[in-house]
């Protein structure tokens, strides 16, 4: 049963989401979150994203928009209804409608 919300983001976003109570570490020490900073390799982010997509207990994956941009090909490949990928605002990166995946779909749909 898809119950949990996973999160990939900067430390403050993850701290806030964990304070809200979504953090979970199971008996095998598998987490449903990943803190990404400047030193985090891209492969770590990709591996975490792919693992969250494969897990059957995760319903929603929250990811900062600027991190989602780095793994955009992987996100575009994901075409399943669940887990739902949701991009959330980043701390030092203001909202960019050009990068909003929903608006990209709108432009694609209307042929722009």
């Amino acid at each position, binding site marked *: 049963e898809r119950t*949990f919300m996973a999160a990939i983001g900067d430390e403050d976003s*993850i701290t*806030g989401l964990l304070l809200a109570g979504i*953090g*979970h570490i199971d008996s095998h020490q598998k987490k449903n979150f990943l803190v990404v900073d400047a030193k985090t390799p891209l492969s770590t982010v990709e591996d975490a994203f792919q693992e969250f997509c494969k897990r059957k207990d995760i319903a*929603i994956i929250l990811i900062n928009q600027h991190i989602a941009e780095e793994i955009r090909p992987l996100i575009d490949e994901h075409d399943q209804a669940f887990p*739902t990928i949701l991009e959330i605002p980043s701390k030092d990166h203001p909202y960019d409608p050009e990068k*909003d995946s929903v608006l990209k779909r709108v432009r694609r749909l209307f042929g722009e």
Partner: protein
Amino acid sequence: MPDITAVHQAHNKVCQDLDDLVLEYISLVNEHLTAWTRISSRFQEGRELISQAKYIMGPKNVSADCYDHRMKALRGVMIKSSTKEIEIRDLRAEEIERQRVEKAREEEEAAAGGTGKDEEGNHRRQKSGTGYDDQDQGSIRAGLRRRGGGGGGVASGGGEVSDDLEGKDDKSDKRHESPTKNASSIGSTATGSTTTTGTSGDATKKKKERNPDPLLWFGVFVPASLRSAQSIFQQGLQDLVEMAMIRQRLIELEEKMTTLREAKAAAAAAASVSVAGTKPLELEADLKAMKV
């Protein structure tokens, strides 16, 4: 003539349906942008409060190093299979309720087993084939009661002894559960509630259960800014779920619109074929009739 009219009507209907879908789609996109703006401002406020807490407590004291590696999710989501709607679930409350129901069931079984029906207990034990299960509690409790009554260290009479035994049985039941379940059962109450457990020496020993509130990872006396940040991010979860549902709905509408566009193209092709196949005089008459 009727064929042309029917084809044109079909084409018009497809166009109308497509227009309605497009309007709904644009309305949902507008809702998405509104939700995004709301989440942005809420998260920004939350992050500012966390930054304030870092300033007060020190950056190392509000960081990923402070996360409790025994954490369990307090909030999750539930997806309704029929409508694909997403709702927030209070996993903590569900766990507490589940443990309460289990405890009530165990107490009932203990009460039923504790009337001295050892034969039944043996029969159930043979039937289940397991070395230790809930049905054994009656006979075990009876044995422990005898041991507790004869041995030393029990301060008072039967009532307290049975409370101790009950606490002991609860502990021994949990021994056979998974470690995950143990951790959640330890943190099963909201604020440091106590259970009475019995040891061989003490009549009453209070055991404080771990409070699962994530705020406590950062210390007992946390600044108000961190509490406010927690409250804001909790409210933000509801906004995130709404945005997830909007996104799901947008994807559904995109698929419908793609299907309708193909139907529209097919209807337009059919309409043009039916018009091309009509004689010019008949076509003129048809057009006049349609204008009327």
